[in-house]
């Protein structure tokens, strides 16, 4: 009953957040080029991507449409692999000059000591690095033999900085699920403070490789692992906000599930499209910075993100938890949007029935 009251309070909080839709978090997909060719890439990024990087000036023009930025407003630079851009430090410095803080998502391959220093000099404040297993498993998923040693260096550097708010993310799959305890010990040994775990969504290249996708039972095993290790409090371990996890809510995260895409999270994608998280189906694009005023559009559109009632169909139509989940993470809606691609709650229920 007490949990029920908390959930109802949180639901009112979500409604209020949706109503005021303060923009706190702006992704900038600055490039689609990548130095790796990971098996699980949802964006189908590659080394020979011919799409041109977005000019910094174009992004800054869009950023400048936000006249009054919220206190915790931040620009999150993503890709592709952002460090492949030669002007990444300039990008960061200019973002700071334009009144915003910035952070970076990277595979860590190019993150050596020199890069670490130049990024800090440019005002980098937060960083996420991807580590998908111990050496053999990570290199398999990242599709190159040197990837682990590179990210190992990057993790050491990032963990040595008290300036950076830094975490490691791991995409859990059938090959690395049995390594989680070892990765946990490795990260603690490295001095890492925060670790987030994901599952892989069957989109992009990942949909053709069944080994990347956890079984329902393995998914429950993952949540049990997180729940257990969180009690030990050795590292800030959490399940990502990728979906609603029913009985595991608050056991695997600090807060209830809340997909903030289009509510507090916006994005400017490589072609200028304006949307929410970059992993959301591009058909949800709300406009384009080359035609629209970014902030006016943020204020006036984004209805499919702020009124999720359209998601009450398919599996969601008869779900008793819909009132709280509201269609799971929006990146789980693709193509014709007739059904949710992944229902985490359903996976847990199936595993419990086994």
């Amino acid at each position, binding site marked *: 009953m007490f949990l029920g009251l*908390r959930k109802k309070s949180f639901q009112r*909080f979500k409604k209020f*957040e949706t109503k005021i839709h303060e923009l706190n978090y702006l992704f900038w997909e600055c490039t689609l080029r990548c130095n790796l060719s990971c098996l699980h890439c949802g964006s189908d990024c590659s080394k020979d991507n011919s799409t041109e990087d977005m000019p910094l000036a174009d992004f800054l023009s869009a950023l400048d449409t936000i006249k009054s930025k919220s206190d915790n407003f931040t620009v999150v630079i993503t890709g592709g692999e952002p460090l492949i851009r030669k002007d990444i430090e300039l990008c960061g410095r200019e973002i700071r000059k334009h009144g915003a803080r910035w952070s970076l998502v990277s595979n860590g391959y190019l993150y050596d000591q020199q890069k670490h220093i130049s990024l800090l000099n440019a005002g980098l404040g937060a960083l996420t690095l991807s580590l998908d297993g111990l050496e053999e498993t990570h290199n398999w998923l990242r599709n190159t033999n040197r990837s682990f040693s590179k990210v190992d260096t990057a993790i050491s550097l990032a963990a040595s900085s008290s300036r950076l708010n830094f975490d490691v993310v791991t995409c859990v799959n059938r090959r690395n699920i049995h390594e989680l305890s070892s990765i946990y010990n490795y990260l603690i040994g490295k001095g890492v403070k925060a670790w987030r775990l994901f599952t892989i969504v069957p989109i992009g290249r990942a949909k053709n490789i069944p080994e990347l996708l956890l079984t329902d039972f393995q998914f429950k095993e993952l949540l049990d692992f997180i729940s257990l290790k969180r009690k030990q409090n050795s590292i800030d371990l959490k399940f990502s906000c990728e979906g609603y996890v029913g009985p595991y809510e608050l056991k695997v995260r*600090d807060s209830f599930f809340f997909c903030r895409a289009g509510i507090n999270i916006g994005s400017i994608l490589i072609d200028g499209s304006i949307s929410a998280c970059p992993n959301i189906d591009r058909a949800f694009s709300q406009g384009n910075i080359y035609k629209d005023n970014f902030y006016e559009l943020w204020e006036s559109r984004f209805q499919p993100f702020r009124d999720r009632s359209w998601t009450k169909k398919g599996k969601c139509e008869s779900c008793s938890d819909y009132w709280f989940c509201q269609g799971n993470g929006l990146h789980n809606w693709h193509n014709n949007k007739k059904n949710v691609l992944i229902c985490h709650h359903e996976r847990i229920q199936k595993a419990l029935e086994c």
Partner: protein
Amino acid sequence: MKQNWRRKLLGGLSLTSALFIFQACYGTPHDFGLDIFIEGQVKSEKTDKPVKGIKVSVSDKMQFEYTNEEGKFSFYTETADSYKIIFEDIDSNQNGIFVGKDTLLTNINKTVYLDIVLEEK
């Protein structure tokens, strides 16, 4: 302001943390802005001209930068009570030879500009 109180109240009733400092699925943690911006220019005492190639660093930190053609430097570094900024000529006689200098900064707000004059050896 009124909205912020309402947000905190509604969020607080659900007894969960991380309500306002959240993280997108594929994003980074939030930057709490715990840094300051240090910039300035290094000139020669003898010629009053900018000096290129001077290494500027913060004591006990890995970070450093070199002055450019205009003798200018700028970088962000993490917030502290005081900062010892070190200026070193490490490029031999490539841009002249200068005596190093340390500058102690205290009570810095968010930015500081330093005019540094170095003595030639």
